[in-house]
């Protein structure tokens, strides 16, 4: 079993739809959770960061973490064509400890159709 699983898509939605992107993971030590957006031929860009369980909202984006289920989600409201990109979840076991790094999911390719 991979450490972080994510449906690779592609996922196509009409403009204005609510998009739900998800990752599951196996390492219960993970406590920092991130979502990155990557446009074609660009570097990953941090969208959301969450520590431990709970919700976090930033504009049209909401990140949810359920550590008991080892499941994280990113919701995009009122999706726009400019949201078309690959979305990568990432997580790490601990901040500040040597030897820890960010583990990424394989990414979900999203297309928002006008």
């Amino acid at each position, binding site marked *: 079993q991979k450490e972080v699983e994510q449906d690779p898509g592609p996922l196509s939605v009409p403009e204005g739809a609510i998009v739900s992107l998800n990752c599951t993971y196996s390492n219960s030590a993970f406590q*920092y959770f*991130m979502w990155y957006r990557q446009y074609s*031929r660009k570097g990953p*860009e941090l969208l959301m960061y969450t520590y431990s369980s709970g919700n976090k909202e930033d504009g049209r984006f909401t990140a949810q973490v359920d550590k008991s289920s080892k499941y994280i989600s990113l919701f995009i409201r009122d999706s726009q064509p400019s949201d078309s990109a690959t979305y990568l979840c990432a997580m*790490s076991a601990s*901040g*500040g400890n040597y030897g820890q790094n960010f583990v*990424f999911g394989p990414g979900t390719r999203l297309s928002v159709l006008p």
Partner: protein
Amino acid sequence: DTAVSQTPKYLVTQMGNDKSIKCEQNLGHDTMYWYKQDSKKFLKIMFSYNNKELIINETVPNRFSPKSPDKAHLNLHINSLELGDSAVYFCASSQVAGGTEAFFGQGTRLTVV
């Protein structure tokens, strides 16, 4: 002002050559990373340095050698390039190892022919 910059952006080279990719961050972060992204977009850690000290060295052929002259720079040297080395290589940095967030460079697209 670019936070994490890497050069070159594109690199096309022949099998057997030796090449280097440079990375610099101006965020004052202590930790820098090299990630490899394959054709399926999967990002995999290669190396991690904390304040010039190697802290992660994943299962990477020893043809790959990172060098960190100071905590703002992390270069990647690759000897005897092979076709399978073709990928996009990303440099990243974070305040602490595995810390709250990592910032990525724009990537170096390496093509070995």
